């Protein structure tokens, strides 16, 4: 799992350590990746939308989700992986 947001790397590092995450957290400062995946409408959007995208072993999109249940979503999405 790769977490992607707009926060600076230093903040990501501090927060990741604080909450004990093991996923890599990536800094999409210019919003280009978020825009490519539909998580942002423009380069000045303050925060990405809560979405996730499952990419298969062949590099194709297996599923894309708008996340409403942030707490339960990762387990539900990972459960779909065969």
């Amino acid at each position, binding site marked *: *799992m*790769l*977490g*992607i*947001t*707009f*926060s600076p*790397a230093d*903040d*990501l*590092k*501090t*927060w*990741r350590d604080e909450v004990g995450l093991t*996923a*890599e*957290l*990536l*800094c*999409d400062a210019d919003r*280009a*990746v*978020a*825009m*490519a*995946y*539909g*998580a*942002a*409408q423009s380069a000045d959007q303050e*925060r*990405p*939308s*809560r*979405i*996730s*995208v*499952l*990419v*298969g*072993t062949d*590099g*194709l*999109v*297996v*599923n*894309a*989700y*708008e996340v409403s249940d*942030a707490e339960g979503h*990762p387990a539900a*999405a*990972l459960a779909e*992986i065969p």
Partner: protein
Amino acid sequence: MALPEIGSRAAAFTLANQDGKQVSLADYAGRQVLLWFFPRAFGNN
């Protein structure tokens, strides 16, 4: 902007991780990977 279409090729990217190391989607070739877009560090994500 719409979510990516199922079955379409996932857009390639390279971004810095929390340690400043460059990470590419291509690094995960041959593995399934969940891309999790979340609002911000320190938020209720």
